[in-house]
């Protein structure tokens, strides 16, 4: 039992600098149909030095992802015209998407039954409950992927 540190409530805001340092994974595709969330992610990620593109529906999201121009794909599971799960499977299937270099991070507010969650964990590189992380915390999470 040693140093009793008084925690500083403002520490949270000041500890990790968001900007500064060029991110290695620069290009991000956000597949997200909720406009407000898209706007918030766009703002926070752009500020942190990322190039961001937002797509709001499944089929066009898949098409865009298959251009292989992105380092990171943030994929919502509830998107129009195609479930995020289907999209994820297509991206991981070498026949439909050969040599995908992107890391795929699931961003969702819908928590799945066990079997579905297992499936996701096997195929995705990360899983985030959107309500649990603010846009800034999301940026920090993405920065942690570079380590």
């Amino acid at each position, binding site marked *: 039992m040693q140093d009793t540190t008084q925690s500083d409530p403002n520490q949270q805001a000041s500890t990790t600098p968001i900007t500064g340092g060029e991110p290695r994974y620069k290009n991000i595709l956000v597949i997200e149909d909720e406009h407000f969330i898209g706007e*918030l992610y766009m703002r926070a990620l752009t500020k942190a030095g990322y190039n961001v593109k937002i797509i709001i529906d499944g089929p066009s999201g898949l098409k865009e992802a298959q251009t292989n121009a992105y380092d990171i794909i943030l994929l919502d599971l509830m998107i129009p015209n195609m479930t995020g799960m289907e999209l994820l499977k297509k991206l991981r299937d070498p026949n439909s998407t050969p040599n995908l270099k992107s890391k795929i991070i699931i961003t969702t*507010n819908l928590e799945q039954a066990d079997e579905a969650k297992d499936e996701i964990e096997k195929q995705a590189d990360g899983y985030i409950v959107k309500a649990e992380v603010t846009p800034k915390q999301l940026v920090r999470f993405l920065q942690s992927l570079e380590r």
Partner: protein
Amino acid sequence: MDYFQKLTKQVATFLGITQFVATALAIAGVLIAAYVYSLPLYIVALIGLAISSAVAYLSGRLASTYVTEPVLFLWKAILHVSPSSHGASAPDLDKSRVGKELVTSLALQVYQLASSETPTPQSARHTAAAEHNRTDAIMQNFPLPVFVMDKKQNIVYANTAALHYIDQPKQDVINHNMYSVLDLSFPSDHTFDAWLTDSRDNKATASESWERVRLMLGDQKTKKQFDMAAYYNKDNPENAETIITFFDKTVRYNKDDDAVSFIALAVHELRTPLTVLRGYIEVFEEELEGKLDPELEGFMHKMQSSAQQLTAFVSNILNVARVEENQLFLQLHEENWEKILRSILNDMALRAQVHDKTIEFSIQPDLPTVALDRVSIYEVVGNLIDNAIKYSDKSSQIIVKSYLRDDGMVETTVQDFGIGVPSSIIGNLFEKFYRNHRSRAQVGGTGLGLYLSKAIVNAHGGQIWVQSKEGEGSTFGFTLAPYAQLADELKTTDNKDIRRTAHGWIKNHSFYQR
């Protein structure tokens, strides 16, 4: 034996009389031929020979019928009870003339043997075959699925209901290993396979039942849920080592699952606006920090912490529903506890601050790594600190400590100096919906937090406890196992992570070992 001597005497008398009669007839014939008709001697000899031949033939016939009569009666008696000659009538023992007592006695013994439980070998085979047909007919029409496995756990029998239930043709089931046919999951680590292993080691026969077993069908989409019963017999002569049957509860158990999915959906709908609120508040904070007067800045922090608290509560609801339905599912990873605890406390600091509380913490350096599910433990610490904030009353200090106990467990405590818990209700604190009654008017809350925290800590293999004195405050503590302590559990799986058994669905293990 007396009866037999009597039979011998009867036969001797009969043979004596016929012999005498035959000899007398032959002598009479010879005398008549010689003296009455004065026939030449060789004719007389021929006549004597002919008469004695005829009489010998007749007496032979008579004697044989007479002497073999007991055999005939016994033969009829045996035929009558033999299953291979249906309809042979029973001999009328009253008509027996020779050795009546012996025949009657033997026939009755035959009848008795035939009706007793030890049949003669020939009829035994027949009875077994008939029995088998009958059992098969019963099993085929039995309205519950029945599978029978041999010692290698190959399916040697499945009735019609079983094939129908799993929707597989007979040739894909019979002589296939049960683990390739039946994809079973159990709500605890007491799986069918665990039971079978134990029974093989310790029992000659055993039976067991399980509730809420899941079966995934071949299409990987249809899920059946049922209660299951099994019977084990070590040395079954028919090679039927285990018998299992299912009691389908798919509709009922699915309804329970739907209740969880409904909550999952409701949680989704609540989380989306919360995500947006938290996001925009963060933007305001970033853009307005230092530009607002202290009062407004305080308001902003209160908004921020309230949104955060609501988010945590929404997750609590979902997880309580999962605990209730045995669906809370943890993935334990090796983690640096100090790092994780610091980041949780960092998040909680704002919540404490807007309520004018401060969190002081001390974490023992060089704690061993622990096995934990990050998201769930976040909820535990969050709930304990939220409680400390709620029940602190006017005191402002909350102390968090984490250290290694003598028994090797990592213990973490959250202490407040508030209203405390009366000793009369302290035992109920970890029950669902339980709240400190006196404080209900002043303090909000659902009474789910401690209930959920206990479930999560227990699923980690740890313990949660409370010490409290009314008016002086409370200390809540929980333990986590060092990662090394779970190394054994790790060796049994290929996975680097540990899937917790307490609340998840456990696959029937052998399926993976084969």
